[in-house]
């Protein structure tokens, strides 16, 4: 009798014939005559409906048509469908707000989105740097860094807890009121970007920290055992692996950041959302917001696809074993 065989409990399960094992004791191994009750074949037809097999494409096409058709029907057949169409999807108003007309008192949403892009790009670079610094400080163990570690923790708690729009108001209204030379005479876009950087760095530093923790301690040991100083080990061994692991959550935060540049409009800066708001107030048509929404989608979707490609390329490269 093979007592390394797992799975067969000393007590026979219900339905098993008790003809194995020595007489008088509970059988451990079922007898030679044991056969599984019935067939293993799946009964019922649940599997076919869930796709897979040749019918899959047809089924997915049909279901897509049904869902899209139902949504379109609800939208088009609603009692207020004509009013909504006119207020939000008027081609004329969309074009007007896209190109703008300063003499009529409104700005081009298409031009204003460039300010969002510039704010996003500048904020992103600063956030990546500041957040990394905060994460490294919080991860440090040196006793001399203790006070800075506490400050970094308070910073992260504070800016993760305060709504971004309050931070934008606080910086945009508070800093000019300080009447400091240079600092108090910047544009609202600069204050807006500063607020974005302060707030997002708190979030992104936590993402970095998760990434640093995801690299196994043995990698640190391996790097240090070769005589690499801590800084070199961090730069060449730990950080590259940490960053690879956090690309998806980082991207998520940056998509979010792209959209949140619209909040800077509360300071009066003419970015896409503010330009759309001004148009709607002048012309009494909300199609300008639809234009702004489309422009934001045009920005965020490529970023999402780009990161998917990065992740896929990295995965393939490591599996294929090809030098970059």
């Amino acid at each position, binding site marked *: 009798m093979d007592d390394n065989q797992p799975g067969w409990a000393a007590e026979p399960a219900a339905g098993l014939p008790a003809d194995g094992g020595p007489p008088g004791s509970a059988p451990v191994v079922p007898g030679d005559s044991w056969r599984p009750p019935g067939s293993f074949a799946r009964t019922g037809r649940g599997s076919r409906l869930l796709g897979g097999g040749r019918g899959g494409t047809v089924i997915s096409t049909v279901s897509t048509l049904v869902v899209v058709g139902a949504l379109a029907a609800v939208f088009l057949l609603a009692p207020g469908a004509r009013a909504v169409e006119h207020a939000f999807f008027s081609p004329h108003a969309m074009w007007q707000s896209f190109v703008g007309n300063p003499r009529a008192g409104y700005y081009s949403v298409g031009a204003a989105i460039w300010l969002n892009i510039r704010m996003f790009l500048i904020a992103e670079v600063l956030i990546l740097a500041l957040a990394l610094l905060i994460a490294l400080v919080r991860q440090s163990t040196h006793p001399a860094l203790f006070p800075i570690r506490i400050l970094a923790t308070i910073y992260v708690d504070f800016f993760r807890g305060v709504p971004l729009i309050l931070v934008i108001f606080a910086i945009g209204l508070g800093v000019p009121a300080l009447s400091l030379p240079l600092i108090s005479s910047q544009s609202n876009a600069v204050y807006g970007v500063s607020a974005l950087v302060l707030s997002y760095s708190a979030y992104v530093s936590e993402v970095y920290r998760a990434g640093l923790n995801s690299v196994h301690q*043995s990698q640190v040991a*391996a*790097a240090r055992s*070769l*005589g*690499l*100083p801590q800084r070199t080990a961090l730069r060449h061994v730990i950080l590259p*692996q940490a960053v690879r692991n956090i690309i998806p959550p980082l991207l998520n935060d940056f998509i979010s950041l792209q959209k949140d540049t619209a909040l800077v409009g509360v300071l009066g800066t003419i970015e896409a959302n503010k330009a759309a708001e001004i148009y709607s107030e002048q012309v009494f048509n909300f199609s300008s917001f639809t234009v702004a929404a489309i422009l934001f989608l045009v920005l965020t979707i490529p970023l999402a696809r780009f990161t998917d490609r990065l992740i896929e390329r990295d995965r393939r490269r490591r599996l294929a074993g090809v030098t970059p």
Partner: protein
Amino acid sequence: MSEAIRIEDVYKSFGANEVLKGINLSVATHEVICLIGASGSGKSTLLRCANLLEPIDSGRITLWGEQITGPGIDQNLVRRHVGIVFQSFNLFPHMTVLRNVTLAPAKVLRLPRAEAEAEARALLSRFGLADKEAEFPDRLSGGQQQRVAIVRALAMKPQIMLLDEVTSALDPELVAEVLDVIRELAATGMTMLIATHEMGFARDIARRVCFLEEGRIIEDAPPAELFSDPKDERTRRFLGRIVDAGRM
């Protein structure tokens, strides 16, 4: 033969768990010493302490007569001379084999890239890995990964090698290729301190074998003596269990 490394009365605890309880060990230049003992007996911790990856609580460790434990020691300088290879390989997964091997020579010894790569290629081909330099570690077998890890440590031209159960994570059929590499190293006169569960290998290669139990060196003798005529009852019991498990 001069003394390469000396471990004197070393104690080490992790929290309440005392792992090393007064270890004394001396390794002469060109000497190969094997550490045997059950898991948790302190073999790995001892090697990690000798590479300064773990600070010791008390006692001292000297390299060629100079104390390396305590304040004011350049740990990175010590580690250049004392290489260590781990049970789980610990290759850098985001780098090719060649970059794994050249990273430390380039960044620590500041070798020019071409020179570091030439030396790395020479080492790789010596250990049968010439065609693997462009691969990433996860494309290699365990045996190949462990050989790369040994090459990576050797690229720093250490005088002493510490091997921490380097075959324990390998499939049985891959153990031999790694043991062959270690035999070749021993033949070149490399000073080595080897923690291992491969008793046959220890008997072949070691000049002395130390049996550890519960953080103490119970017996320290030439392999012929320790394996065929162990003096201590605890050594006899340990070896008995190894024989019962069919491992010797």
